[in-house]
C-alpha cells in the first residue's frame, strides 16, 4: 500500500531519494525482514511471522490510539498504565467480584468482563480529555499525572500481586478468556485480527469521516478549526477516550496471552507506542500522519526486536538499536516536513 503512494508521488517528480524518504518506514521494514531472513533460516517462516505479529498487536493497538492523540497535537503518556489497570480490572472480574453488601461473589460472563474493561479504559481516557480540553492542562502533564494515578490504583487493587487464574471455571460459565490470546481463525492469531480490525476502522475514520477531518484540522490549526465550526473540545475528549479504550483492549489481549494480569504490565509501553507513531512519519506538532505509517512503525519496532532475539543478540543491544531507529526516524521527519514547510 505504501509503495503505491510512494511511486505515485515519485512519478510527478521522480527521484530515488524522494521515493526512499516518503516510503521510508516501508523500506525499513523490508530491509529488516531481508537482513534477518539472511541471518536466520527461522525468521522468514509463516509461523514465526505470525508469532511476531501477535506480539506487535499489543503495541499496534496502543499506537493507533496514540496516533489519534498525536494528530490532535497532544500526547498520551498514560496508555501503559491504563493497559495495566484494565488488565487488573479484568482479572478481578474473572476471579469473581465480592459484593459484601449483597453477600455474594459476582462471576460475570466473559463478554461482560470485556465490555466493562473497555468502559473503564474509555473512562480514564475521557478524564485525560476533560483535563486537557476543559481545564487547559498541557497534555504532557495531564497524562503524566493520570499515568501515575492509574498505575497506583492498579497496584492498590491487587496489593502489588498478580491475578494468575484467568481461565474461568466451566461450572460458573465464565470460561473463554484465553480465546483472545491463544485462538486462531484460519491460522491467524485473534490478536492480529483485532489489530487489523482496529486499524481498518481507524483508517476509515481518519480518511472518510467528518470526525477525521475535524481531527486533522484541529491538530493543524486549532484556532482556525474552531472558527470554521469544528467542535475542537469534543474532538479532544474523543481522541483521549478512544486512546484509553484501545489501551484497555490491548490490556485484555496481553492478559489473555499471559493468562495473568499484573499491575506492572505495560510499563514504558506508551513510549514504544509514541516511537511507532513517529517512525510512521507523524509530526508531533499535530495534523500530519496516518494509520498506514503508524502500522509500519509498529511492525518495524516489533520485527526488529524479535529479529535481534532470534539471532541471539543481547537485549541490551536491542534497546540501543530501537533507540537508534527512533532518532533516525525523527531526523527523516524533520527533513521531510522541514522542506515541505519552507515556501516563499
Amino acid at each position: 500500500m505504501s509503495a503505491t503512494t510512494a511511486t505515485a508521488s515519485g512519478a510527478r517528480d521522480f527521484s530515488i531519494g524522494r521515493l526512499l524518504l516518503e516510503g521510508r518506514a516501508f523500506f525499513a521494514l523490508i530491509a529488516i525482514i531481508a537482513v534477518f531472513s539472511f541471518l536466520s533460516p527461522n525468521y522468514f517462516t509463516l509461523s514465526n511471522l505470525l508469532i511476531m505479529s501477535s506480539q506487535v498487536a499489543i503495541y499496534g493497538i496502543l499506537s493507533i490510539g496514540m496516533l489519534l492523540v498525536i494528530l490532535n497535537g497532544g500526547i498520551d503518556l498514560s496508555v501503559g498504565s491504563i493497559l495495566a489497570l484494565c488488565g487488573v480490572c479484568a482479572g478481578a472480574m474473572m476471579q469473581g467480584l465480592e459484593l459484601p453488601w449483597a453477600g455474594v461473589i459476582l462471576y460475570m460472563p466473559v463478554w461482560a468482563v470485556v465490555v466493562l474493561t473497555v468502559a473503564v479504559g474509555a473512562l480514564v481516557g475521557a478524564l485525560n480529555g476533560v483535563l486537557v480540553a476543559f481545564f487547559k492542562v498541557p497534555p504532557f502533564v495531564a497524562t503524566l499525572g493520570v499515568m501515575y494515578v492509574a498505575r497506583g490504583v492498579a497496584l492498590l487493587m491487587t496489593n502489588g500481586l498478580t491475578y494468575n487464574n484467568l481461565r474461568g471455571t466451566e461450572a460458573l460459565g465464565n470460561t473463554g478468556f484465553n480465546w483472545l490470546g491463544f485462538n486462531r481463525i484460519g491460522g491467524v492469531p485473534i490478536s492480529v485480527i483485532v489489530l487489523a480490525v482496529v486499524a481498518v476502522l481507524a483508517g476509515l475514520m481518519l480518511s472518510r469521516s467528518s470526525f477525521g477531518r475535524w481531527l486533522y484540522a484541529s491538530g493543524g490549526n486549532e484556532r482556525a478549526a474552531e472558527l470554521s465550526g469544528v467542535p475542537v473540545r469534543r474532538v479532544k475528549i474523543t481522541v483521549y477516550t478512544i486512546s484509553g479504550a484501545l489501551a484497555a483492549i490491548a490490556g485484555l489481549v496481553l492478559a489473555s496471552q499471559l493468562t495473568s494480569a499484573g499491575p506492572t504490565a505495560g510499563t514504558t509501553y506508551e513510549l514504544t507506542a509514541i516511537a511507532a507513531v513517529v517512525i510512521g512519519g507523524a509530526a508531533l506538532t499535530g495534523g500530519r500522519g496516518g494509520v498506514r505509517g503508524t502500522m509500519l512503525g509498529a511492525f518495524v519496532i516489533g520485527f526488529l526486536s524479535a529479529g535481534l532475539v532470534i539471532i541471539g543478540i543481547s537485549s541490551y543491544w536491542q534497546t540501543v538499536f530501537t533507540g537508534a531507529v527512533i532518532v533516525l526516524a525523527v531526523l527523516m521527519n524533520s527533513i521531510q516536513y522541514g522542506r515541505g514547510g519552507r515556501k516563499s
Partner: protein
Amino acid sequence: MSGPMTAQTQGAPDARDVVLAARNVAKSYGSVHALKGVNFDIHRGQVTTLFGENGAGKSTLMKILSGVIQPTTGDIILDGRPVSFANANEARDRGISIIHQELSLAPNLSVRDNIFMGRELRGPLGVDFAEEERQTRRLMEELEEEIDPLTPVEELRLGQQQIVEIARALSVDSRILIMDEPTSALSASEVEVLFKVIRDLTAKGVSIVYISHHLEEALTITDHAVVLRDGAMTAYAPRSDIDLDWIVRNMVGENYDLGSPPDSDRRDVALSIRNLSVPDATGKDLVRGLSLDVRAGEIVCIYGLMGAGRTELLETCAGRLRATGGQIVLEGQEVSHLSIAERISRGLALVPEDRQRDGLVQTMSVGQNLSLASIASFTRGLFTSTGAEKKLIEDSIRTVTVKTSGGGAPIGSLSGGNQQKVVIGKMLATKPRVIMLDEPSRGIDIGAKAEVFRLLADGARRGLAVLYSTSEVSECLSIAHRIVVMHKGRITAEFDSTVTKEKIMAASGESVAA
C-alpha cells in the same frame, strides 16, 4: 509610454551613489520562477520603496539581498564589488539588516533581552546587563517610545513590539536596512514616529529599502520607487516623477477600481447587534453598549484604528468571545447562547483578520481548507462523499477565483491574496445569510483586493448581508452602502457612501495631518 522611465531602462541614473545592487538576479523553485532577472539599486542615504502585488517577488528579492536565500543566477554587488552571502548573519556583518513582516521576538523575554538576543554584550561577570539596558534606553529615546527596557515583550501592544523589532535592527549599526511592511500594525502616530526615525537614519547615510501595501503612506517617505510584477521589474523612477496612479498602473498593469456600492434590494434586518458589551481579560470593556443593524443585501463598513474594538465586536458575533451584556439577533432569533458551529449553520460566518493564525490549516491542502467549514454538507451517513466534496471544492475555486494548480495543492503554495480568497471561499461555502470580514484586505495586493470586494458586492446583490472592517479610508469609500466609525468600543459616527475621507478620519480620533 510617456513620463517616467520604464522597464527597458536598466540601472539607475546616478550609479555612483549605489551601495548595494542586484544585477540580473533570478530565483527559481523547481519550475516556478519567483524572480526573472531583476536589476535593483539601493542608494546611499535614501529610501527606495519596492512596490508590487503579493507574489510579485518582493519578499524573494529582499531575502536574496539580506542573505536569507541565495539567487539561482545573477550577482549581488556591494560597494561596487560582487559578493555572495552564505546566510543572513554574513549579510548582517556587512551592515545589511532586515525586519521581517512577521515579528521575530521572544514574547517571554524583556525588551532589552530581545534587542541583544544572540549577541549579548559580555562583561567581566558574564552578560553586561547594565550596559545593555543603557543602550536600550537610548534606542527607545531615539524612537520616542516610552517603553521600559525591562518590560516583557508580551505586555506590549503590537505596534510597540514592532518598534522593538526596529530598535533591534538599529542596534547593530546597519548601513542598509530592509523593512518589510513595518507599518502594518502601527497606529497613525506610531507611523509618524517611524517616518521621523527613517528620516534621521537617511540623514546619517543609512540606506532604507521599504516595502508596504499602504501606497499613500509609502509615497510620503520614499525617494525612489521600483515596481515588480510577476518576478520582473516593470518600472523604476525617482519620487519627483511619479504619483499614486503611476504606481498602481505599473503594479496591476491596468486601471484599478475597488468598486462602488452595488444596486441591491436592502430588505429586512439580517443581523441586529443590540447594546453589546465585551470585556477584555482584565474586565475593561473593549466594546461598550454597541448597537448596529445590517440588512440583507446591504454592505456595512466598520472603520476604526487599531484597538477600536472592531475585532472584538466581530469575534463576539461569531461566538469566539463571550459578551457580558446585550443581544446578537440573526434574522429575528437570538444567537448569543449558540456555539460557533451552530451560528455558522444558522448562516452567520466570520472571515478572521489573521489568516495564518485563525483562517488556514497549514497542514491541509487548498481543497481541504475550502471544505472545512461545510463538512456536514457532503457527509452521507457515517462517511464523507468524495464526489460531493470535490464538486464543492471545484465550485468554490471557481467562485472565488483562486489561482491554484488544483484542490490538492498545499495551502502554503498560494500567494497571500489567494490564501485570503480560500478563507473567504471556505465561509461562503457554508451558504451564509450574513458574512462578517475582519480586515479582509490586510496584507493582500490591489488586484486581489478588488476581486475580494467584487465578490462581496456580488453577494450583496444576491441578498447577502455584508459587514466588514478596515483601517484604510479608501476602502470605506468603495462598495459600502453605509460606513460606521468605531472609536474606543463605541460607534462615534455613521455616514452614507457620499462622505469624504476627512470626515471619516476625524470621527475616528485620527489626526488629519498633512
